């Protein structure tokens, strides 16, 4: 009974913290963009525009008001889901994000699946003798995939499989000769639902290289997590007890050690999402994948302050939500956790 009350309290506190963190991030981004050197007006009109035009635009964008008033407007708009307009083409920022988010999510989910399969397979080396050959291979795999610069790995993959062998397209998300499927914006799902095999094949061919590269890069995190936890579990008392009862080693690993070693992997998945976004930023740019990170890179090079601000706030919000969800899930699933 008391654990249940503790659990409710923990989950409540974690959920209550999320909006505070979001508010902190939003305020930080707002403040940084305002105090930083460089005037957005300069970026839009150039430094030699007439003063009248500059003042008019400044007023139109509300940049002539005191910082505190601007901050009030910003928070007020944010709460209602209004992220302002892109400075370069006046599209609402929320619309830009809505259009590019499915592409990123599609890439991210597939990459995460590939990372989990590769990483968990490599992590099984945790059952090997410590300091042995298999252990060395597992550790080197973890360090090696971590040490690969994401964009370089992507370029090498492009060179081999797209430029050299010609098996896959170099970049983009969809064959330019076909009409992209309408609907949710998740091309794989949309073309499956429409039953259009040509569209499905086209989007798959474009997805393979970026998703595999990102998956490979992230798999090291899963490898490390499973390997260390598996080893810890195999040294534990309950495994020793199981062994001494004469249970076969196969059963010991699969039925006793593995379930306990897999639970921390869930926590790792939550952490991975943050690195996923960092990696995705570079992978999307390298493969010209029209996701949210690709838009961010565009917004940065065009010095579109509003778009940068909107994308950063939304991405940060996603990360905070995922991390809170994972914390709550782990607390619900793992009865050993005390708060």
């Amino acid at each position: 009974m008391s654990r249940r009350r503790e659990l409710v309290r923990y989950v409540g506190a974690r959920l209550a913290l999320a909006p505070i963190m979001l508010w902190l991030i939003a305020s930080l981004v707002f403040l940084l963009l305002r105090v930083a050197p460089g005037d957005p007006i300069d970026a839009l009109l150039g430094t030699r525009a007439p003063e009248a035009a500059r003042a008019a635009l400044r007023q139109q964008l509300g940049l002539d008001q005191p910082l505190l008033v601007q901050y009030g407007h910003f928070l007020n708009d944010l709460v209602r889901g209004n992220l302002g307009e892109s400075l370069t083409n006046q599209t609402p920022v929320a619309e830009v994000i809505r259009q590019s988010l499915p592409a990123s999510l599609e890439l991210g989910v597939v990459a995460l699946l590939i990372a989990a399969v590769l990483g968990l397979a490599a992590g099984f080396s945790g059952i090997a003798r410590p300091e042995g050959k298999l252990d060395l291979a597992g550790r080197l795999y973890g360090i090696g995939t971590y040490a690969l610069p994401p964009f370089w790995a992507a370029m090498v993959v492009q060179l081999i499989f797209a430029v050299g062998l010609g098996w896959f397209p170099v970049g983009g998300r969809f064959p330019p000769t076909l009409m992209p499927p309408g609907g949710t914006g998740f091309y794989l799902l949309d073309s499956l639902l429409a039953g259009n095999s040509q569209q499905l094949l086209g989007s798959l061919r474009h997805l393979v290289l970026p998703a595999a590269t990102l998956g490979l890069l992230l798999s090291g995190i899963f490898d490390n997590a499973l390997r260390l936890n598996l080893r810890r579990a195999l040294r534990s008392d309950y495994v020793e007890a199981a062994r001494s009862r004469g249970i076969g080693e196969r059963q010991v690993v699969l039925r006793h050690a593995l379930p306990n070693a897999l639970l921390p992997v869930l926590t790792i998945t939550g952490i991975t999402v943050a690195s996923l976004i960092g990696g995705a930023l570079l992978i999307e740019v390298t493969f010209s994948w029209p996701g949210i990170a690709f838009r961010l890179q565009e917004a940065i090079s065009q010095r579109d302050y509003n778009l940068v601000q909107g994308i950063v706030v939304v991405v940060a919000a996603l990360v905070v939500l995922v991390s809170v969800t994972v914390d709550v899930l782990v607390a619900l699933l793992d009865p050993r956790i005390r708060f």
Partner: protein
Amino acid sequence: MRQWLAPSGGRSLSGRLARWGTLIVVLYGLVALLTPLLVHLGALPDPNAGLENPINASPTWAHWCGTDRLGRDVGVRTLSGSGVALQVVALALVLALVIGVPLGMLSGYLGGPVDRVLVLLMDTLYTLPVLLLSVVLAFLLGRGLPNAAAALCVVYVPQYFRVVRNQSAQVKAELYIEAAQSLGAGPLWILRRYLLRNVITSVPVLLTLNAADAVLILGGLGFLGLGLPESIPEWGSDLQQALTALPTGIWWTALFPGLAMFVLVLGLSFLGEGLESWVSGGEELTR
């Protein structure tokens, strides 16, 4: 050096990793020191000069790693990049240490509302994707060597803060601190004399692993066009330029800078892993 690594066992895996890591990092340090000297003496071509060379030439005897789209020697640029990377990363980590460690000590020692606010702030920063944070900062600060270091350092301040704060909070409750307090030692004295020495042991491992991470992020910034000024040869921005030439099959501008970066990160990670198992007494990995 051998003796320093001896506790991890001469033949153990961690010891071997640490030795390889040390070798790689020392090698990069040497390259970083020698390349500007050799360029100055004329033994190596200037990394920014390319007018007399053929453009986009594949590797030859004259240019072992080929030339880029401006005719600059890819090999020399790759070598010069190691000095640049090491400088920026070292500057960033020193900054992060100088800010993060005292802040963490103070927060852990004082406790109370100051501590709670600082922890919340740092946790929030820590939650954000590392690259996103430094991309935003680099975007705001503009290109430049100190700017890139500042953009990197913000990522690592929360990490030192967390480690040092938690240790300080732990050590604070020890009996010898209470003894010192009752003998009339002031807070500054206690922080310096007792806390710092206890806390600082956890820093070297974190420092090495963060250096590996920072090399990757600096490369990422350069690749996104945010890192250093164009006059400084840097792996990330060279790779960005290589990307546009990639579809035409020009592989040498992409291969060498990336490989240099990969091996440096590998070396730093080996060193960090080796140090880690050495500090933890090899308990985690050798038992």
